[in-house]
């Protein structure tokens, strides 16, 4: 396999979104037409070999997908799979959106201390959060809030039913000092 084709495979494998051929061309420093040709060749190759995945052209870019005829396996995987619960990261993100709405992705990211793009997208795809407004300030960031599906799932009548946040949170240093003081000797 050519280095270019291998690089395309590698990038598409780790990409979370369809990758536009223009971007691939930039990364590989080859013309976009060459990228299109290589992607077509790869797609044909996978199909001819009867692989369980395909290289699809979606939303202006390329991405790997499971082969359509294998959907029954994917469905069973989804139903029996490990993804039955919301991850801790997703729950925290959802909590921040719920309490701080309307809130921008950057603000959520600031509170959690990590990039929340993927988690926010998942929450949004599941219909728990949605774009509710645009920050009127510079940058015009999208602001997110929770949906009525969210309220429904949590059995809440309205956002006012969320447990209030404590008015006073002891400084972590104080908590630490207390812990230290109460820790049994030895």
């Amino acid at each position, binding site marked *: 396999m050519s280095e270019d084709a291998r690089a395309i495979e590698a990038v598409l494998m780790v990409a979370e979104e369809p990758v536009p051929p223009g971007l691939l061309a930039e990364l590989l420093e080859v013309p976009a037409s060459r990228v299109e040709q290589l992607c077509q060749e790869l797609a044909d190759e996978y199909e001819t070999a009867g692989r369980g995945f395909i290289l699809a052209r979606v939303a202006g870019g390329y991405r790997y997908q499971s082969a359509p005829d294998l959907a029954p396996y994917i469905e069973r995987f989804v139903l029996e799979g490990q993804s039955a619960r919301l991850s801790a990261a997703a729950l925290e993100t959802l909590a921040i959106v719920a309490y701080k709405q309307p809130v921008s992705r950057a603000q959520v990211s600031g509170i959690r201390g990590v990039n929340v793009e993927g988690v926010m997208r998942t929450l949004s795809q599941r219909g728990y959060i949605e774009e509710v407004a645009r920050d*009127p300030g*510079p940058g015009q960031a999208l602001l997110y809030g929770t949906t009525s599906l969210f309220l429904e799932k949590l059995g809440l009548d309205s956002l006012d039913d969320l447990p209030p946040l404590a008015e006073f949170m002891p400084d972590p240093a104080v908590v630490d000092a207390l812990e230290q003081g109460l820790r049994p000797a030895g």
Partner: protein
Amino acid sequence: MPYDVSTPVFEGPFDLLLHLITKEQVDLYEVSLSAIIDGYIEHLEHLEQVDLDVATEFLLIAATLIELKTRRLLPGRDGVDLDEELGLWEERDLLIARLIECKTFKDAGLALERLAARAARSLPRTAGMEERFLALVPDVLAGVTALHLHDAYVRASAPRQVPRVDLDHVAPIRLSVTDAVEALVDVLPRSGTGVFRELTSHLEQPLEIVVWFLAVLELYKDGRVELDQAERFGALHITWLGEQHEPLDHQVPWEEPALEDRRERAEPAAQRFP
């Protein structure tokens, strides 16, 4: 002999001792203990914060060393009773065992770092499933209560330990685009025109300059300034298109309220979040 603390930071007393003994390959009995301690104290003075645990542990080790050394230097060894002598050896063996353990894990840590660096060359696929399968995903919020959500928020918003070593080189963003716009709107109406490089000459961090540049673009987008740059990388001239203000009575009618205020207003239940 002067002891030169040239290594960046000794995180713990064992590190220090290890360094002294292994790196320098010295016999501690040939070294002035006071010089070591002076060196350590000098090192402490350069620290912004003294970790008392580290300091006291060093004290303990230094005391042990001093005791070992004085016993050797003092005459009248005949009088030392056997138990005491044995105790001394025991202490020494314990110290050596701890030093060996410390060294072992130090090297193991480096091995983990190498493993992680190697693993990081190969990224996993995390794209997940295509949208058409999403509807099948079982109800992931099943069993989650509002209280869980509350706890998750408290967990997420708890102040974090600021990483001490790895993020030191990252400057915090002290300036927002809004601030920079305000500053420009304060300066430009008075001078009428300005050069970007001069307007930002007081800034030190590239990030701050970027923020100011974004602010200039913001003003340009709003039609409040005209930009002119004769050549690539040349001076960027900014011309104020609005009214010329006197320095003291300037007013910014279009100024956005600060983000905090906006959020308060947009949020019906703001009183929940003191």
